[in-house]
Structures are given as C-alpha cells and as structure tokens.
C-alpha cells in the first residue's frame, strides 16, 4: 500500500512542478510583464504546497492507522461474559486470521467476525487514504496556483520555506535527545518505585534476580549499583593509564618532532584505530590479551581470572588513543608558533620549550581531550561485555572479573522479558546515571576546550 502511495506522491511532485512552471510563463505572457523571480521558483512553490501537506497526511496515516483500527475492532468485540482476555494476544489472533484465512479453522465465531471487521476496516482505510492524499495534493496545488502572478515574489517565499525545512531537520536531533532523556527518566521512575534510590546508589550488593513465577525459589533481588560503578571506574582507570601516556606522547611527537610527511601519514593511520568496530577490539581483548594477562598474573603469583578488568581496560585504552592523540595534536599545533620562537630564541632546547611553554599553554585543551576520552571509555560496551566478564565484584584488583554499567544494561535487556520487573527496568536507571555522568564530562570538556580556544584566536 505504501509503495503505491509513494508512486502517487512522486507523480504529484513531477506534475506540480511542470504545471507551476508553464502556468507562470503563461500568466506573465498574458500580462505582458516579466515575473519577479525565475519560473523555477514558482514551480518549486507549487511543488512544496503539493508535497508537504500530503507528506504530513501520509505519515500521520502511517503512524495512527493501525492503532485506530485496532481500537475500533476491540471496542466492537463481543466479549464473552466471564472469560479472561489478554488484549495483545487477542489482537494478534485477530490479525493472523485476517491476514491468512486458513488460520480461521477452529477459532471462535467472535474472532472470525472481528477478523472480517478488521479486514474491512483496513480496506476502507486504504481507499480513504489514497483519496485524501490525492485531494490534499490537488488542494495544495490549487492554493499555490492562485498565487502564480508575475508580481508575486516566489523566490522570497521559497527561501522562507527552505529555512523552515532546515529548522525542522535540525530540531529532529534535539527532540530525539529530549525524547530519549524523558523515556530514561520515566522508566527509571518506575524502577525507583520498586527499588529505593538509596539502595540503588549506595548498596553494594548487585543480585538482580527475582522470582518470575509465583512459587519459584529465587531470592529477593538486590539492586546496589556500587559494584557496577566501581567496575566501570576500574576499567576506565586502566584504559586511561594506557591511553593518556601513549596518546599524549604520540601527539607531542606528531606535533613537534615529526616531519610534515610523517605527520600526514601517521595521523590518518591512527585515526583508523578509531574506526575499528568495538566488537573487533572485544574479541581481540578476549582472544589475545586476556590469556596474556592471565599468564602474566600467574607468573607474578596473582590468580587472574580468564576475563579481567585489566584485559578489557588495556584494549579500551588502545581504542581511545586516537581520541587523545588526535585532539591533543590539534591543540598543540594551535599553540602559536611565536611562543615556540620566543622560547627557542632565548636558547631553550626543544624539550624545555615543550615542557615549559607549549604543554602549559595547551593544557586546557589536552585536559578537554582527556575528558572526552573518559566519557567515551565509560560508555563503551562491546569490549567489556566480551573481555571483562559479568560478575559484579566490588574490587580494586584489575586481575579480577568485573562488570560495568553498559554490560549490566545488556544483561538486563537480553531475553524475552516484559518491561515490568525491576530486573529489566534497572537498565533504564543504570542508563540514566551513565547518561548524566557522560553528559557532565562532555559539558566540562567542551567548556575547557572553548575557553582555551578563546585565548588564542
């Protein structure tokens, strides 16, 4: 159905454009004056009036049609006194029968009736959908064609419309963010209705298993997120211990020592690191690094588990090296050349110049790069899922299994559970906390970077 309606709209676009252009030429010839804008703009004007109202109808139909039809079917359904119905199952059954009449065998007469009601409603909806699209397009084109006079400034109007379109496009991302935040908040509130917020934030027991069926022997779940955040923090610290020195020293080499040619080759190569899918890092961590960490732990007498915070953190550190090196390299490069010359001109050598003049001047930007890298590290999922394990240990020992916020969200959402128990809802609470942390880190980082930029430009 929606394919043919797309064809319909395409035809509308094409013909309205042709119509608009020939109509304005005709009109200005009739009046003997030149039109204020080029004919194309009048054509675009007609096109927009033809297209956008139709698109609005199209999408609202697509969104609401099924819902409305279902509501009508359910409200007309002949419920049998005393029977218990699950509305979702009932609807699925009705839809199945309607789409595939062979399923009708053995179904109750109410369901078969409802199914035929459903199909007839769909047919009505389809016909009225096509008619209304055509009518809307014609009305739009009609309205626009009345304005097709040579003295009408079509170009100005088009530019205003285009501005509206641009505003609409840019607000999509913003509204999506707001929507995500609200859904996080509301689902978290449902979670906190069942689990106290103090337990969540301060208790140290994470055991999110609760009885699903009555009579099942499972302990009461406990939802203390402290071990999870501690695990996240531990992995992040390990990652930063790897990424900060390597990234910063790489940046210093690239910005201060490397020749132009080396820099042009190495920088893109480093940025490829950032483009490797994180799951690839994940199995690299699991297959190569984790066994090495375990063997190393054993050789120095520490009992390391096969997946560990150290393995995950080290690989994650490698992953965020390009963030730090690339950003820091840009920052160091934007330190004015005159400061380098001033320092060298006094007789400082290169190392002194870098240590005492360039790094202090670039420090705010470098710190900003670190913070962005941290927020990347704590939001990272796949590496830790694969290489850090899922055990909520409250430990400072990087050779042990730990788990992170992102891993627990994955664990909570895997499986076919409804979103009505604290175990699945905990994902939203964890997500909310994670979101707040990374948001703050990003804001601080951007502020620092901005302040630094203002000083030199």
């Amino acid at each position, binding site marked *: 159905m929606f394919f043919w309606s797309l064809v319909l709209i395409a035809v509308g676009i094409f013909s309205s454009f042709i119509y608009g252009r020939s109509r304005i030429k005709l009109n200005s010839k009739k009046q003997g004056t030149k039109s204020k804008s080029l004919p194309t703009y009048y054509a675009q004007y007609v096109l927009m009036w033809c297209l956008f109202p139709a698109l609005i109808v199209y999408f609202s139909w697509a969104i609401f049609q099924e819902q409305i039809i279902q509501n009508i079917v359910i409200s007309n359904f002949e419920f049998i006194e005393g029977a218990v119905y699950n509305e979702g199952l009932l609807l699925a059954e009705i839809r199945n029968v309607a789409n595939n009449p062979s399923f009708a065998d053995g179904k109750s007469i109410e369901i078969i009736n409802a199914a035929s009601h459903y199909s007839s409603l769909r047919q009505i909806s389809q016909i009225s959908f096509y008619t209304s699209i055509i009518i809307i397009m014609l009305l739009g084109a009609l309205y626009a064609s009345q304005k097709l006079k040579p003295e009408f400034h079509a170009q100005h109007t088009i530019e205003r419309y285009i501005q509206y379109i641009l505003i609409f496009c840019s607000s999509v991302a913003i509204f999506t963010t707001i929507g995500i935040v609200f859904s996080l908040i509301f689902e978290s509130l449902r979670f906190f209705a069942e689990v106290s917020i103090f337990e969540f934030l301060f208790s140290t027991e994470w055991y999110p298993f609760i009885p699903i069926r009555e009579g099942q022997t499972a302990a009461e779940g406990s939802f203390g997120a402290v071990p999870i955040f501690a695990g996240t923090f531990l992995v992040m610290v390990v990652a930063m211990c790897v990424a900060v020195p390597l990234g910063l020293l790489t940046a210093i080499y690239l910005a201060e020592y490397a020749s132009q040619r080396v820099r042009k080759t190495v920088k893109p190569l480093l940025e490829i690191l950032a483009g490797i899918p994180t799951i690839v890092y994940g199995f690299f961590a699991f297959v190569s690094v984790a066994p090495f960490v375990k063997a190393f732990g054993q050789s120095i007498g520490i009992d390391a588990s096969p997946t560990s915070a150290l393995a995950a953190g080290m690989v994650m550190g490698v992953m965020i090296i390009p963030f730090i090196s690339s950003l820091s390299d840009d920052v160091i490069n934007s330190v004015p050349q005159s400061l380098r010359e001033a*320092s060298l001109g006094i*007789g*400082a050598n290169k190392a002194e110049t870098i240590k005492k003049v360039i790094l202090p001047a670039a420090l705010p930007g470098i710190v900003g790069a670190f913070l962005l890298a941290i927020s990347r590290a704590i939001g990272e999922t796949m590496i830790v899922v694969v290489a850090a394990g899922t055990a909520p240990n409250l430990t400072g020992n990087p050779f042990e299994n730990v788990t992170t916020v992102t891993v627990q969200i994955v664990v909570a959402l895997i499986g076919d559970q409804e979103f009505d128990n604290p175990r699945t809802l905990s994902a939203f609470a964890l997500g909310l906390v994670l979101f707040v942390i990374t948001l703050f880190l990003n804001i601080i980082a951007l502020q620092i970077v901005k302040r630094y930029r203002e000083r030199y430009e």
Partner: protein
Amino acid sequence: MSNSKILANGVDVYYGSKQALFGISMDIKEKEVTALIGPSGCGKSTFLRCINRMNDLIEICKVSGSIKVDNEEIISEKTDVVSLRSKIGMVFQKPNPFPKSIFDNVAYGPTIHGLVDSKNELEEIVHSSLKKAGLFDEVKDRLNEPGTSLSGGQQQRLCIARAIAVNPEIILMDEPCSALDPIATAIIEELIDELRLNYTIIIVTHSMQQAARVSQKTCFFHLGELIETGETNKIFTNPDNTKTQDYITGRFG
C-alpha cells in the same frame, strides 16, 4: 676587523628551490645599532634569522656561506645552537609573551640556563632586566599577573626584558614596533638608544624614519641582495646606489 662582532661572508639562503638571499656579506661592529631596511620580501628578516639560526625551524630552508660571531663560525653542523641563542637575544615583530606571569616570563631564560642559584638572585635578575627594559616602574606591583594582560608596548618591552635577562651580547629585533602605536614606538626607540651602550643591536624595520633615528649603520636590501651598506647618515643623505636613492625617496617599496 678590530671590533667586528658579526662577520657574514657570501650567505645564500634557499627556501626549497627558491633562492631568497644572494651572497650577503656584511660586517657588524660591536655596540652599534645596525638597521636593515628594504621593501617587503627582500630578505632582511631572513638574514636576521640566520644570525641566531632561527631558520632551522623551517624545514625547507637551507643556508650556506659563512657567518662568524666573535670569530666563530655559526653556519655549521657543529655549532651549539643553544649557547649561540643564549648569546644572541631576539625580539619579534608581534609581542609574544608566554602565557605566564610577568615575573615568570623574565625568569624563564635564567632558569633554563641555570644562571641563578637562589631565589633572591633570580629576583635580582628579573628586577634589573625589567629596569633595563624600562618596564619595572610600571609593573613592579603586579609581577604575578599574566604577561598577556599588559598593553602591546609593555608586552614588547617585557619581551626585551626577557631577552636581556640571559645577558646576551647581541639583540636581534625583527620589526619590533610594527604592531605598536607611535607613543609605544617612541618609548622602544629610546630604549634601543640606551641598550646600545651595552649590546650590539640589529634591527629590521619598515620605517625609514625609525632606521634614521635609532641606527648608526644602515644596510639596504633589495630582492635578496645587499645593495648598499654604510653610515646611516650617508645612506639617508647621499647614497651611492640609485636603487637606494629611489627607495629612501619613496619611489618604490
């Protein structure tokens, strides 16, 4: 060559394949101000930057020929650039104080060269350098404020103080007043006149009046060649070369 401080002989400079200086030879006397003048792009700054090997910073720049400072060849692989540059201070076109306090700006050189053993000594050097640069009275109450908070003229004098804090013998100035207003320029020019008593100064300038006011010797560069060099008085009143004549009378450049 009794008191010749810098002796250049046949200096050629190439940027990549483009030759910027053609066989420059020059004799610069001790404790004099020598002005390098000429139209933009004539190579006077390039020559200045050969003297403290600042051109090393430019990857594609190649220098050949001979420059002797105190009879020591400096265009050589073996030259100790760090000690050369501590002997030859430089002041740049745009004031470029470090984003540090006024005190730390001046203290930078003495600290990295290990010229001082104690805090008091360092303070003494900083104060005396600021005094020599004629800035001390203006900033003595705010030595801990950032150097970048000063006015343009003060910043430039801070840069001069920073240069003389390591006790150089030669000061190179690359259009030190081109970013300053006339009053700040006058103050710097007066300062140059005082500094002449203790330092050998080479100044690149676009302003012929400035060259006439502050220098004893003037060298005129044109298209990478040294056209004429001589007493400032003579260059500005009775030059030998017609190109010099044309330039100082404003016919080109």
